[in-house]
């Protein structure tokens, strides 16, 4: 009956091999004699997006989807994905999470101060829900065995420690489904995964200096001929030459102070000034007969 069905979630980032790993789990469960349903989403998600797979098994499975708060194990191939799916794990359930971090480009909210929304890695994050959390560095373990790409099998080995499926079934499923020629390393990775040590949690990197505000873009219009070089190189799209051929600042708040425009201007017409530094008088900008 449905209430006897159990659930497991795998989550990661597009390209990490979440779908193959979940096919291995599902195949092992079938070999162990269970009814199994496994549900995933293809398409857009595979392009570097968040990828997940639900697996449910028992004598007769109804829903292919795991209900929130009911999964026995969450296997996360990446830290932020562990956080995204942890609410599906039941109290007392297990979380196997790779401490690998993949920070999506859009997570950087401010390029100057480099602030991101990426969640910090903490071993006891879920302690109040009595979760059995196992943080591992699967890639490092797999690399020691000779192929970093076998990291998924390390994670599966770690997951197997929380499930009562005979290793015979796991190893048959792995042998069946991993690419030809990688069976041995994946089997070794799986066995290593059962005993894999807790990963050292990487220290958060030191804060960058930060910025107190955008840089100021000073334009000497009498020197500018509207050649458009600066606006085409600006990484932040701060500048534009308008239909009158005049250089305008279209996005002043976005300037990070990289000074590409200043350096590439053939007419020395642009000066980038750090925040809160007073404007330099034009006379003082001429040093040794050359503008800078």
């Amino acid at each position, binding site marked *: *009956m*449905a209430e006897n069905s159990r659930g497991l979630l795998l989550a990661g980032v*597009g390209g990490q091999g979440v*779908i193959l790993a979940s*096919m291995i789990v*599902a*195949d092992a469960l*079938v070999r162990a004699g269970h*009814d*199994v*349903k*496994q*549900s995933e*989403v*293809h*398409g*857009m*998600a*595979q*392009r*570097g*997006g968040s990828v997940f797979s639900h697996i449910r098994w028992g004598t007769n499975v*109804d*829903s*292919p*989807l*795991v*209900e929130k708060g009911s999964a026995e194990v969450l296997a996360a191939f990446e830290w*932020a*994905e562990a*956080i995204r799916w942890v*609410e599906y794990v039941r109290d007392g359930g297990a979380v196997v999470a790779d401490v690998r971090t993949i*920070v*999506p*480009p*859009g997570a*950087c909210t401010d*390029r*100057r101060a*480099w602030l991101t*929304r990426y*969640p910090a890695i903490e071993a006891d*994050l*879920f302690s*109040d829900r009595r979760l059995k959390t196992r943080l591992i560095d699967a890639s490092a373990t797999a*690399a020691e065995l*000779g192929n*970093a*790409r076998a990291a998924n099998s390390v994670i599966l080995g770690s997951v197997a420690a929380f499930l009562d499926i005979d290793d015979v079934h796991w190893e048959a499923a792995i042998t069946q489904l991993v690419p030809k020629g990688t069976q041995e390393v994946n089997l070794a990775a799986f066995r290593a995964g059962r005993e894999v040590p807790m990963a050292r949690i990487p220290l958060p990197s030191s804060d*960058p*200096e930060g*910025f107190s505000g955008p840089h100021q873009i000073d334009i000497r219009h009498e020197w500018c001929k509207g050649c458009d070089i600066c*606006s085409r*190189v600006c*990484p932040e*799209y701060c500048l534009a030459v308008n239909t009158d051929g005049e250089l305008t600042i279209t996005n002043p708040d976005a300037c*990070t*102070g*990289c000074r590409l425009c200043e350096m*590439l201007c053939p007419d020395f017409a642009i000066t980038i000034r750090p925040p809160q530094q007073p404007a330099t008088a034009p006379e003082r900008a001429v040093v040794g007969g050359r503008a800078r």
Partner: protein
Amino acid sequence: MTLDVEPRVEHRRSVLLSGNEAVARGAVEAGALVAVGYPGTPSTEILESIADRDDMDVRWSTNEKVALDVALGASLGGVRVLATMKHVGLNVAADTFMTAAYTGVGAGLVIVVADDPGMHSSQNEQDTRAYARMAGVPLLEPSDSAEAKTYTTLAFEISEEFDTPVLVRTTTRVSHNRGVVELGPRVERPVTGFDRNPQKYVMIPGHARGRRPLFLDRLKRLSKYVESTPLSVESGSGDEFGVVTSGIAHHYVREVLPECRILKLGMSHPLPLERIREFSASVERLFVVEELDPLVENDLLAAGIDAEGKAFFTRIGELSPDAVRDGFSRAGLVPKQIPIESAPSTVARPPLLCPGCPHTPPFLALKRLGAVVTGDIGCYTLAALEPLSSMDTCIAMGSSIGMAVGMAASGGAAGPVVATIGDSTFLHGGVPGLADAVYSQANITVLILDNGTTAMTGGQEHPGTGTTLQGTEATPVDLVGLCESLGVRDIRVIDPYDMGATFSSIEGAIAHVGPSVVITNRPCVEAPTKVRDTPYEVVSDACTACQACMTAGCPSIIWSDETFEGRRKVVIDPTTCTGCTLCAQLCPPLAIVPVQAGEELNGG
């Protein structure tokens, strides 16, 4: 990834199949000789899983309408045929579909349409069950892989018995769910041959008027059939309340209320109204749990059967065990869910264009040029997202060109108007739009992003690729010749990996008065061949952290822990870099260089 639907181990007759693979297996066992479709998530893997069978003709068509035309033609020729598409594909095929309901079929014609509630990979979440009602054709709704197989096989029987096309409607959670399926043997069926019958197959008004009453009579017979079909299954006990449900929703109901009275509809159009009326009379409250629109609920209300449904179960997106539990708790039948302690917030992770994607450079150029970009359906639609942010519209397959014509005609665009469309999408639905642009001498530029595959759905062949679904050689459509013959006078073919040429060609095409076409000619880096060249690396000492490379949004370029003047430098992930050179071209201090031989990371 697709699986061979033959048993992987000889002695195992029960195998794990996705819903898509199970649909294909159903057609195989029913003795279908032709299977045809156009790729579209979540339907694509149906045809791929049986592509290599030598006892079937399995093929991609140019679009869903052509696919259904091919299917109907094959059916009239006397072979069982499976047509596959996603929900919005049926819009394209609707013209044929609506009239095929009048003509009926030769041998069995089954149209599998995969809906995408929740819009995991679609532009809308229209409900194909409404099409069944509009066209007056029967619709089966499998709820898992096992049913996907048996219903597909049965659909062929129904199609032939009632002389009608039959819709099999799956959803993402059925198509992309793997479950255990018992395999059966293929039953070979001889080709019955084409019967000339103009009154039935030539739908001129005089003949169609004759078909209309026959079509309505068929619906009446189907309504009678569905009352006694074994496709409707009752389970559970109790008289307090009962649930009418279908498809994946059935499993969610059983998950939440394992013992409750359920009438599961395997065929949800036409409805077994008398059976439901009887069921309704045996319970105090009747609920309808259906994904998306309240079609069954409204039909029941119209038939005078009191039912509750969308008051408790959302019309938006997918249902789930959580959503069904929540609905029944608001209906007062199960205790309220205990809220789960929520996890800390995490980062959004939208999909991205792949490292080395040849679509990236043209969109960088379009952003610089301030173009108003009418986009289309494909991987390049991702250019609408940060950091490229250079697509302004995306509606339907092939819409980009016609919309550009209209945008230019409006005079309301603040910049040059550019339509962007992939090769597969251009052949699918873009060609008439380009003819229109020439006909009206619209001042637009059409950017055909020819990467030699249908990339978004995983890399399928199409008439422009020069290969078939089986990988055998075909005559490719000559895009330049096609555009020339349509009357385009300014056609440029560019290598999008050459950033300078890409920029100046697009700029030149925009300057051309009248319609112009720019065709990019780099293949997709993922399909059909994985393109991997020497990866690039950042010389940290030379990096000035200008972050110009970051504007490309390449997933291989990641933030470094080092800074310059307080700004983060970047590093390149050598395991995912394809060596496309785009970032190196964008780097003003020339800090991005190829990884020297012997320096590459092992295994990675």
